[in-house]
C-alpha cells in the first residue's frame, strides 16, 4: 500500500483527506499530516475518520516540522499543499526537495516552486529516480499535463493560450453581464470566497503568469521563469471598455499566452462564441499542436475540482510504482 504525507492542511488538504476517507480508503495510507503549526505522525497510518476539525487537537500532534518525517521508512509520496510563494517558493520548495532527496515521489498543488525552479526540480527528480507530479497547479481539475503525458507527447505543440485565473474571470464576467464596477465585483468575489483578501496575484495577472510559465516549461520545454513574462493585469479595464467590447459581440478576458518562444499575460478582446470564452470562475486552455490542431479544455480552475487532479497524480504514481 502506498504511504502518503500530506503537508499543508488548508481547504485543499481537508478536501483531499475527505476524498481519501470516503472513496479512496484502503488504497492509500496517510502516515503524516502537517500544517503550519506542527505535524501529526502515525507510523501505522492516521485514522482519517477520527481526525478532529482542528489538526492541532489530534492526539499525537506535535509542534514540529514535517521535514523529519519525509523518510522512506514511513512515507512513499509527499503530497505538498502549502500556500504559493512566488518570491522564493518556501516552504513548499524545501519540502519537495527534502522529499525527493529522501527518495519520495511528490505530488504538489503548489505553483510557486514550479514557477521558480521547474527545470531544476525536474532534474533533481530524475537524478533521484522519483516522480514529481503537478496536475493540480494549473486549471484545477483540467487534466492538461496528464493529457500531454499520455496523449499529446508524440505531437509537436505550437502554442498554448488560456483563461487561467478564476478570480479575474469572475470579475470580468460580472462587469460584462451585470455592468458591475470592478471594485464591487472584486468585493463580491471576496465575500463568496473566490478571491483572497490580497487579490493582487489575481488582478495583476501574476497568478496567470505563474501558470503560463508552468505550462510553457512542462508542455513546450521553454525553460522560462516568471521574470520572463510580460504581464498586464485587469486593473485598468473600465466598464466603458467592457461596454465597447459588448457592442461588437465580444468581451474582455485575461489571457495567458505562450507562443513564438514568448510568454505574456494580457487582457484580450474575445468573441462571445469563441471556444475559449468561458465565464464565471471557469478556466479554459487551448493547445495548438501540429497534427491535432486546436484542442480546448474547459473546467473549474480551483476548489474541489483540484482534488481530482491530486488523486489522479496519486493514482498515476501508484500505477507506475506501487502496483505490481
Amino acid at each position, binding site marked *: 500500500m502506498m504511504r502518503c504525507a500530506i503537508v499543508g492542511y488548508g481547504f485543499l488538504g481537508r478536501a483531499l483527506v475527505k476524498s481519501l476517507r470516503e472513496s479512496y480508503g484502503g488504497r492509500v495510507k496517510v502516515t503524516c499530516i502537517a500544517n503550519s503549526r506542527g505535524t501529526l505522525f502515525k507510523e501505522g497510518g492516521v485514522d482519517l475518520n477520527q481526525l478532529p476539525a482542528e489538526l492541532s487537537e489530534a492526539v499525537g500532534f506535535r509542534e514540529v516540522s514535517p521535514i523529519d518525517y519525509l523518510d522512506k521508512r514511513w512515507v512513499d509520496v509527499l503530497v505538498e499543499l502549502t500556500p504559493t510563494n512566488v518570491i522564493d517558493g518556501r516552504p513548499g520548495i524545501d519540502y519537495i526537495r527534502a522529499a525527493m532527496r529522501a527518495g519520495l515521489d511528490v505530488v504538489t498543488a503548489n505553483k510557486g516552486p514550479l514557477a521558480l525552479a521547474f527545470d531544476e526540480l525536474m532534474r533533481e527528480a530524475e537524478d533521484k529516480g522519483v516522480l514529481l507530479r503537478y496536475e493540480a497547479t494549473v486549471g484545477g481539475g483540467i487534466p492538461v499535463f496528464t493529457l500531454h503525458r499520455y496523449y499529446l507527447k508524440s505531437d509537436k505543440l505550437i502554442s498554448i*493560450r488560456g483563461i487561467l485565473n478564476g478570480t479575474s474571470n469572475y470579475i470580468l464576467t460580472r462587469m460584462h453581464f451585470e455592468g458591475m464596477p470592478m471594485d464591487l465585483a472584486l468585493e463580491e468575489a471576496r465575500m463568496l470566497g473566490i478571491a483572497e483578501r490580497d487579490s493582487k496575484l489575481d488582478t495583476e495577472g501574476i497568478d496567470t503568469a505563474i501558470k503560463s510559465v508552468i505550462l510553457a516549461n512542462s508542455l513546450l520545454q521553454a525553460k522560462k521563469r516568471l521574470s520572463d513574462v510580460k504581464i*498586464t493585469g485587469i486593473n*485598468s*479595464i*473600465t466598464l*466603458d*471598455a467592457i*461596454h*465597447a*467590447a459588448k457592442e*461588437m459581440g*465580444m468581451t*474582455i*478576458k485575461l*489571457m495567458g499566452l505562450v507562443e513564438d518562444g514568448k510568454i505574456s499575460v*494580457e*487582457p*484580450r*478582446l*474575445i*468573441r462571445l462564441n*469563441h471556444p*475559449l470564452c468561458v465565464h464565471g470562475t471557469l478556466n479554459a486552455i487551448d493547445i495548438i499542436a501540429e497534427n491535432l490542431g486546436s484542442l480546448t479544455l474547459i473546467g473549474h480552475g480551483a476548489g474541489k475540482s483540484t482534488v481530482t487532479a491530486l488523486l489522479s497524480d496519486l493514482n498515476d504514481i501508484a500505477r507506475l510504482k506501487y502496483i505490481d
Partner: protein
Amino acid sequence: MRFKVTVGLPDRPGTLLRTLEQIALNGGNIISIIHNRERITGGYVPVNIQVDFPDQECLERSKVSIESLGIPVLGTETLEKRVETVLILGPSQVGRVVDTFNSLGLKIVGVSVSGLPSSPCLKVVMELPIQGRKTLLDRLEGAVSSLGGLLIREED
C-alpha cells in the same frame, strides 16, 4: 498572398502577354485583369492585375522582370487584409494615438471615444495586412504603451 500589380502598358499587341509571362515565371497565379482604358496617360493604359504569389519576394522579382521589358510597374499593393478592432485605454491625447496608427501605415476605418476625458476608451477599427499582422500589432502596442495607454487586441 494576394497582390494588386498595376502596370502601364503601351497600347501595342503582345505587351500584356509578355507581362503575364513574367508573373507566371515568378510563381504568380493570375486572378483577374482590369484595363483602365478610360485612364490612358502618356500613351500607357493602366492595367490592374490581381495575382497570388507564394511570397513578397516573388512579387519583387516579377516587378524587376516586367520593368526590364520597359513596361513600368506603377504600383503594388497587398490585397489580403482584415478589418480588426482594438480598444485603447488610458491616453488622453487621441490625436497622438491616431498619429501612431498613421506612422505605422495602418488605415483607420473608424474611431469612437467613450469614457471620461481622464480615462478614455478608444475603439479603433482598422485595416491590417494579414502578412506581418502580428508584428504590426506588437509595434502598435509598444507605441500605445509609450503614450501611457493599454492596447487590447482581438484574440484569433
